[in-house]
């Protein structure tokens, strides 16, 4: 995984401070590949239950702003979905979600 300890800690803290209890954050994409360099930070946020779109956007914005404050502004792509492996919730058929769930590494839990 190509994330510095300080970056991982910033993600854990932002998750704890801005996301509802039971939420999880996974890293996926190019930052899991140790042979590559640079690249966006791709994160999947899994909310424990459905939220109105307005609240999803507000939560995502506060989460990202917390990361910008800790790490400086950088390309952080955030995909949001509901449920987890144990409680999948309504099906999210987007390929990016399936990939993130299959290959992603859990970084934080609120």
């Amino acid at each position, binding site marked *: 995984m190509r994330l510095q300890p300080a970056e991982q800690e910033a993600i854990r803290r932002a998750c704890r401070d801005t996301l509802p209890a039971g939420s999880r954050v996974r890293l996926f994409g190019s930052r899991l590949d140790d042979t590559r360099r640079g690249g966006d930070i791709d994160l999947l946020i899994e909310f424990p239950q459905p939220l*109105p*779109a*307005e609240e*999803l*956007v*507000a939560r*995502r*914005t*506060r989460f*990202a*702003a*917390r990361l*910008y*404050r800790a790490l*400086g*502004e950088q*390309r952080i*792509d955030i*995909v*949001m979905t509901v449920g987890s492996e144990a409680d999948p919730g309504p099906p999210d058929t*987007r390929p*990016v979600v399936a990939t993130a769930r299959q290959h992603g590494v859990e970084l934080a839990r609120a």
Partner: protein
Amino acid sequence: MDRLGIALWETDRHAAALGDALADWDAAPPHGLQQVEGNPALRRMTDQLLFRFLKLQDALGERLVPATLAVLLEPDSDRPMLDKLNRLDRLGYLRLDDWLQWRDLRNRLSHESPEQTEVRWATLKAAAQASKEMLAAYARWRDRLPGKT
């Protein structure tokens, strides 16, 4: 015109145009993304709002931040942007948390997944709300400047 004068001239233009776009938006707020995308006049109005939202952020960040630090005789040339913003937060010119949330909205506007219509619409509405907050913040910032023009 000095550096601050140029920054204010540019920022004022975008603030005025953003204010006009918001007035149009508030006069007949759209009800959803499909309505906006299916109506050329609404689409143009929304595009104008988003364009000026981005341009006002650019003017504030690229012009007014350095010009304000310069007029306050603060060293700024080699500091990271986050340090400059932190300094202006401490001096009462902006709220860093608000700024970073506006930046995130800006970054999201071009990266929404096409299948998530409700999230795209909520992001657009959040940008309209953030535009109002940014205009109010700019008015306070402008008012606070020493020897403002």
